């Protein structure tokens, strides 16, 4: 009875939020679940779940992986319930699941429940009922004020599933790969083979998981893709990335394709992390029983639109807006690598007003975990520092030996467009966080409409 009421409460509040959205200013993706769990704290333990309960977690790439998996499954006729908007905390998951549950039979109406999951919430959501499949994309430094550090994230994930869960893991990440040695259930591994931008040595010394988790010997790497992601083995024991079940090779980002286990696969973005999310989606879908042909059809023919930002122009100069996650050094690093690898002269706008949207802490340490040294490249014409922390960003760039004449501090954002127009050349890349994206878009639109 209590369960039926909880489900009905969830549905009723969702409906109300939809109708009254302009007044309530809530999209109803979180609140209904909150109240439903007030009615019945254990509601999520008491439902009849579909055969596949799939979770996708990790420090980055989980959202992109989830939407690609949904695309492949739906294209093959599966009814999939998934968190499209990326809300991955407890109340959001509860809202989504209960909205798709029959209040009387308590049956979740789907073939697959597919959730992008925050590492901290998996255990809360799937307390009694466990995931049938869990993809773990990577474990890196990510919002340390909230998450602590990679070992803590690793332990949280470890405690969130049991031996019945089939885990699909990125073996290129030595922290994630510990699961291969720890998990008593089924394990499927994936990894990326040699790539043109690999390095023999790490770019910086800020490497997590540098030592073997089994015997504490320093790991030896054949190559690094980025950060601690690469091909490694312990010189002293069996711990190694080793041979993986699904390997991406012959990657061509310009032409947007790669090979997975001899089959050609299209990439919907020309960035390296697309290789990982496509590979993860592929490995998961194969594990769920889809055929190569079924997966390839959805990847190669019925291609999913990538969440490409709208292109803006400043006069004739193209503007590419790249959302960079603060407090996630490897996400920042990949943005820097992407910009560096682009052809032509470049101008960069970077900075932030707030470190985080979740909390008010000003932990700036991550700036020193990002290899801004890579921006010391002749293709980069100017770097504009904006936002409240622009002087900290400026100080970081100076420690990275970027010459003074390449850095411009913008004290008043009103002048950004004029300054960029007047003092810089080439394609414009913005690598800013959530709080600056909207402001810059607005300024660019005004400029396009001739206000400048």
């Amino acid at each position, binding site marked *: 009875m209590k369960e039926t009421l909880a489900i009905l409460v969830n549905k009723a509040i969702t409906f109300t939020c939809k109708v009254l959205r302009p007044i309530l200013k809530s999209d109803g993706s979180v609140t209904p679940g909150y109240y439903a769990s007030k009615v019945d704290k254990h509601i999520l333990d008491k439902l009849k779940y579909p055969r596949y309960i799939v979770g996708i977690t990790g420090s980055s790439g989980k959202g992109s992986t989830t939407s690609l998996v949904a695309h492949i499954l739906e294209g093959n006729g599966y009814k999939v319930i998934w968190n499209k908007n990326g809300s991955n905390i407890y109340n959001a998951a509860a809202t989504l699941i209960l909205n798709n549950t029959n209040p009387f039979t308590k049956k979740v109406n789907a073939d697959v429940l597919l959730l992008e999951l925050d590492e901290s919430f998996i255990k809360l959501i799937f307390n009694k009922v466990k995931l049938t499949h869990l993809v773990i994309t990577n474990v890196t430094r990510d919002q340390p*004020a909230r998450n602590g550090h*990679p*070992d803590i994230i690793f332990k949280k994930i470890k405690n969130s599933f049991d031996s019945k869960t089939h885990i699909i893991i990125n073996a290129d990440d030595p922290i994630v790969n510990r699961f291969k040695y720890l998990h008593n259930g089924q394990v499927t591994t994936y990894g990326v083979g040699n790539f043109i931008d690999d390095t023999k040595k790490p770019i910086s*010394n800020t490497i997590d998981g540098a030592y073997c988790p089994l015997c504490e010997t320093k790991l030896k790497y054949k190559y690094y893709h980025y950060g601690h992601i690469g091909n490694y083995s312990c010189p002293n024991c069996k711990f190694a990335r080793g041979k993986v079940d699904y390997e991406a090779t012959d990657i061509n980002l310009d032409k947007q394709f790669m090979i997975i286990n001899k089959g050609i696969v299209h990439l919907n973005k020309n960035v390296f992390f697309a290789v990982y999310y496509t590979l993860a989606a592929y490995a998961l879908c194969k594990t769920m029983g889809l055929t190569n042909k079924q997966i390839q059809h959805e990847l190669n023919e019925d291609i999913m639109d990538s969440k490409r930002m709208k292109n803006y122009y400043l006069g004739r100069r193209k503007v590419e807006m790249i959302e960079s996650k603060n407090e996630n050094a490897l996400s920042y690093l990949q943005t820097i690598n992407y910009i560096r690898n682009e052809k032509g002269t470049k101008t960069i706008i970077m900075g932030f007003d707030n470190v985080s949207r979740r909390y008010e802490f*000003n932990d700036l340490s991550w700036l*020193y975990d990002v290899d801004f040294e890579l921006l010391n490249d002749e293709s980069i014409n100017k770097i504009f520092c904006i936002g409240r922390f622009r002087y*900290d960003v*400026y*100080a970081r760039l100076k420690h990275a030996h970027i010459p003074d004449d390449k850095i411009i501090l913008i004290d008043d954002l009103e002048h950004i467009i004029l300054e960029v127009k007047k003092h810089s050349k080439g394609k414009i890349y913005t690598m800013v966080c959530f709080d600056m994206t909207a402001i810059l878009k607005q300024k660019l639109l005004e400029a396009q409409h001739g206000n400048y």
Partner: protein
Amino acid sequence: METIRIAHLYYDLLNLYGESGNVMALKQALEKQNVKVRIDLVTKGKPINFKEYDILYMGQGMEDNLEIVRKDILRYKKVLKRLVKSKTFIITGNAYELFGHDIDGKEALDIFPFKTKTVRNRIVGEQVYKTYLLNDPVIGFQNRNEIIDNDENNLFNVIKGNANNQNTHFEGIKINNFYGTFTLGPLLIRNPHLNDLIIKNLLESKGLKYHEDLDTPDYRAYHEYLKNFHIKASNE
């Protein structure tokens, strides 16, 4: 030209929160003083000759990594005990626990008598300190899992944030030229005045002249931060 030698100790185990920034800060400030700087990245696996360095730096690590270091560094107990009297030690984050008597009952270097205890919830937050060494406040951040029972030879007086433990308002330790604090990450970048003080003391102890330069990007960032977050400089 004089060469100042810096060891970044256990650089590949204790480097969790932008710790390498401190080494960058030391290097840049020293080079401005017209001295040569040599930085060695040293770690487990090869014997460490602590004696050949002027500055020994160690930063914060994940708890498992700190344990690897604890086991390794114990072999240098004697030499470190002696060197603490003469060398400059800059120890940030949880690495500072290694210099106490024990960590959760496990043997540490025993250079200082304090004990370290792991606590249930992580201690995370913004820090503002005053220190008798400087006029202006010191800013920073902490993210740790332990408390220590020290209440002597303090480096900082906590104005905002967390102290060594809940019963004191002191943080860190300063004896001779040993500077230890739970403050993580690029402490010396964010506090150029503290960085300069350490360098000044070191250079003068070697009979070298120190030249003041208060107009650097780090000083600008520091003052801008104080302004933005309404932290009073002491002489205001």
